[in-house]
């Protein structure tokens, strides 16, 4: 499809700015102005609408069909949350209003949402307090590690390393490194969970903490989770819970009860806010009582008279990690979702996400190679069978063949601990019929791989493009149309 710049027509006008009622009184000296206007495209409004409508039709979303992208929790995003997030009472609220004297009273509704959400997340995770500021999961991780660093600095602890399992998301080691720590990787056992004896070997007084995703990226709940947290605490380290996979246990078990000290939650995963083609998300961070004082400035408090206020005077705080209160409109959507589900609904979320994942695991285990064939939580991981690999069919080929069958592919080649990994996370919002259709498509791909592998290799054939040349993209950089 042509680029927007290639469709531009000199002199065509789109949306007309308002008429001036003050005359040209501009107060800027000539040398500070640009010589000629920025070369933006020139369009009618209809041109713009058509261009983007056409682009949208080249996209696949949760609303299109099944999107089992492992570890991303692509569940249905309720429309009611979109509607509520567009209420002018929320959209038209300037974030600096609470910094004006008496301004907090102008934003009581928004502050109530933040405060109530804090309480809900505390109850859901077993933590003592939350910050809503982190604007994505990785941002939450960085915030959490900064809290870890502040705690150790405050206690006079000399800590240099953060432990991270080899199956972790790449954001974990990157976040720890950016916060100034050395990263030490902890291997997994052949059962796919953390090797506790290996953990003991790398555990020493230098360890600031451990970052752990639980259930992990193989979809497994670590049975030694409590022992692992205790071990970390034995060297005055902190246990960090990466909440990327909270969906599997929400309402049933709480990271705070496992012994975790710091938790981040991806609201866009567990609490159903749209992924936006790669954001915006939200990654609130919760901590236990001993760490509450380190949470970022500001936090919302409820006063004796029932009104809400922002507390800025927090001497031990790590400071500001976002300009205001986080991605408010995302937090608002997640709040709506939790209100609608309630305690029982959340339990059903966990149960059905786990039921659906196990259903796929059991139904496909005779056709694909299971990474570990035991009860999983929200996702299961497969590789192509030996026969498929012998026929030259790899995970990427299965992914592309799924596209032709109307499904979004699973996450492929992750976790790195499994060769040719295909990580399938169905989520609870999908029905048995959808899962059955997906399972049939997978079986069909497995069968065709042995019979006519070239057909699988040729996929996808139903899309406007097929297997872009990524090597060429990185070699002959074309990153902007100028």
């Amino acid at each position, binding site marked *: 499809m042509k680029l927007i710049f290639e469709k531009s027509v000199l002199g065509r006008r789109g949306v007309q700015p308002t008429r001036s009622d003050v005359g040209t009184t501009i107060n800027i000296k000539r040398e500070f102005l640009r010589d000629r206007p920025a070369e933006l495209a020139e369009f009618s409004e209809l041109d713009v609408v058509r261009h983007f409508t056409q682009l949208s039709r080249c996209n696949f979303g949760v609303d299109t069909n099944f999107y089992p992208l492992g570890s991303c929790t692509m569940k249905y995003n309720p429309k009611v949350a979109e509607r509520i997030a567009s209420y002018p009472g929320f959209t038209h609220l300037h974030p600096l209003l609470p910094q004006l004297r008496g301004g907090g009273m102008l934003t009581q509704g928004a502050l109530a949402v933040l405060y109530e959400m804090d309480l809900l997340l505390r109850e859901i995770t077993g933590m003592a307090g939350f910050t809503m500021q982190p604007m994505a999961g990785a941002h939450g991780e960085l915030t959490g590690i900064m809290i870890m660093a502040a705690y150790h600095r405050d206690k006079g602890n000399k800590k240099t390393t953060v432990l991270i399992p080899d199956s972790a998301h790449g954001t974990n080691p990157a976040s720890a490194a950016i916060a100034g720590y050395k990263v030490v990787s902890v291997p997994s056992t052949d059962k796919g969970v953390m090797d506790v004896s290996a953990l003991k070997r790398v555990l020493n007084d230098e360890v600031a903490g451990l970052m752990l995703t639980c259930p992990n990226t193989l979809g497994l709940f670590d049975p030694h989770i409590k022992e692992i947290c205790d071990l970390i605490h034995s060297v005055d380290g902190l246990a960090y819970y990466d909440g990327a996979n909270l969906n599997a246990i929400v309402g049933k078990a709480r990271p705070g009860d496992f012994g975790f000290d710091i938790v981040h939650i991806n609201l866009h995963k567990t609490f159903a806010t749209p992924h936006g*083609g790669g954001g915006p998300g939200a990654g609130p961070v919760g901590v236990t009582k001993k760490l509450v004082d380190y949470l970022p400035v500001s936090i919302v408090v409820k006063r004796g008279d029932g009104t809400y206020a922002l507390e800025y005077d927090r001497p031990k705080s790590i400071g500001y990690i976002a300009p205001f209160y986080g991605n408010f409109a995302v937090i608002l959507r997640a709040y709506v979702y939790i209100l609608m589900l309630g305690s029982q609904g959340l339990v059903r979320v966990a149960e059905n996400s786990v039921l659906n994942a196990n259903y796929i695991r059991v139904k496909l285990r005779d056709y694909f190679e299971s990474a570990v064939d035991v009860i999983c939580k929200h996702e299961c991981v497969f590789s192509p069978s030996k026969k498929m690999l012998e026929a030259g069919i790899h995970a990427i080929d299965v992914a592309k063949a799924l596209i032709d069958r109307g499904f979004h592919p699973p996450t492929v080649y992750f976790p790195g601990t499994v060769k040719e990994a295909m990580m399938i996370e169905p989520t609870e919002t999908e029905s048995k019929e959808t899962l059955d259709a997906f399972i049939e498509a997978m079986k069909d791909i497995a069968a065709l791989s042995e019979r006519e592998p070239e057909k699988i290799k040729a996929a996808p054939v139903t899309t406007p493009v097929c297997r872009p040349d990524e090597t060429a993209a990185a070699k002959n950089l074309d990153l902007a149309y100028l």
Partner: protein
Amino acid sequence: MPFIANTQEQQKQMLAEMGLTMEGLFSDIPKKLLCGKLNIGEGLPEQEVRGVLAELAGKNSIDLTLFLGGGFYDHFIPAAVYSIISRSEFYTAYTPYQPEVSQGTLQAIYEYQSMICRLTGMEVANASLYDGGTAMYEAMMMALRATGRNKVIIDDSVNPIYRVMIESYTKNLKIELVQTHCATGLVDREQILAKLDDGTAAVILQNPNFFGCVDDFSDIAQAAHNKGALLVVSCYPISLGILKTPGSMGADIVTGEGQSLGMPMSFGGPYLGFMATRMEYVRKMPGRIIGRTVDRQGRPCFVMTLQAREQHIRREKATSNICSNEALCALTALVYLSLLGKEGLKETAQLCADKASFAYSRLTAIPGVKPHFKAKWFFNEFVLDLPKEAADVIAKLIEKGFAAGFPLSRYYPDMKNCILVCVTEKRTKQQIGMFAEALESVL
């Protein structure tokens, strides 16, 4: 149960087919780690939840006339923006890992990158960062990597919210942060030159600065480059409809808050951090980057590229930990700029500057109200000295229906009587007149 498709009967059937029970599916969690029923109440149906949230929305005051800016602006948003970004093919998708089913997002982000380059006068932009503050922090980290140095000079005319964020982020790192003071409204060249040395990685400035003053940093770029340092400039994208670009001044990294490009204020987010640089630094840049390539049949198409810099490949050696960014906000900015077009953006910027200038004349005509700075060139914000404490005056004006501006003493203790006033194209001559009358009445 809302949003869960399987019926009880289907659940039973699935469990039976697997020879498992629901309890069995959770048997891997030690019993003592299972929690009881959460104390969060029963679920609410849509009608009720909309009622609850409508009531909360009603507790926010949105009828104030806003002269409040400070880096976050009340601009007009054309209806078509919301209509386009509400297409669920865009908003219910995720990171375009599979290019064949993501060409919509990929092409849009490539166009967004191009638009940001054209706006800022730079060569390459990334797919977005969280907000203007984290973008500035990432630019600083990028400059440290690019130069292998550890000293950073930042002027106090840079948005104080961003400066406190940078302080937080660097607490556990070995970085020397040096602050210069802006006394006249324009960056003090002498101070910058005195602090610039062979150990300096970057000079971080903002245009228009937090006080609204407009500058040209070409001389500072030159001086920084002479010492092997980079110039980082944070800018207000609407102002680039008329202002000289950071690129033409010689800036090496340009960042900013993109909220003004079609995003509502929404009490602080989601917003859009943008970042652009020169091609020579592209491999040091954090965040996703979309590139154009060809497919198997030679058809032009788009993919995520230069991923070897990123956390999912490089892990602890990555240029940043960022994964999810603000893709939908980047799309919003692209749609907004496309709807306004070349002339529309210029006119919008011009309107802001004209109306601000009009308000400035009107307000400084009030007895006792004076411009604070010597520097007289501003875009759409300016600082006034009031005869009384600004925070008090602002509180009184709230009662009269105006968010009059930002009290600068919050971040600049010696500016007790100073107010930062902002005027966007949404303000009318009549509103400005009423505001002036209200201000005069409370002084």
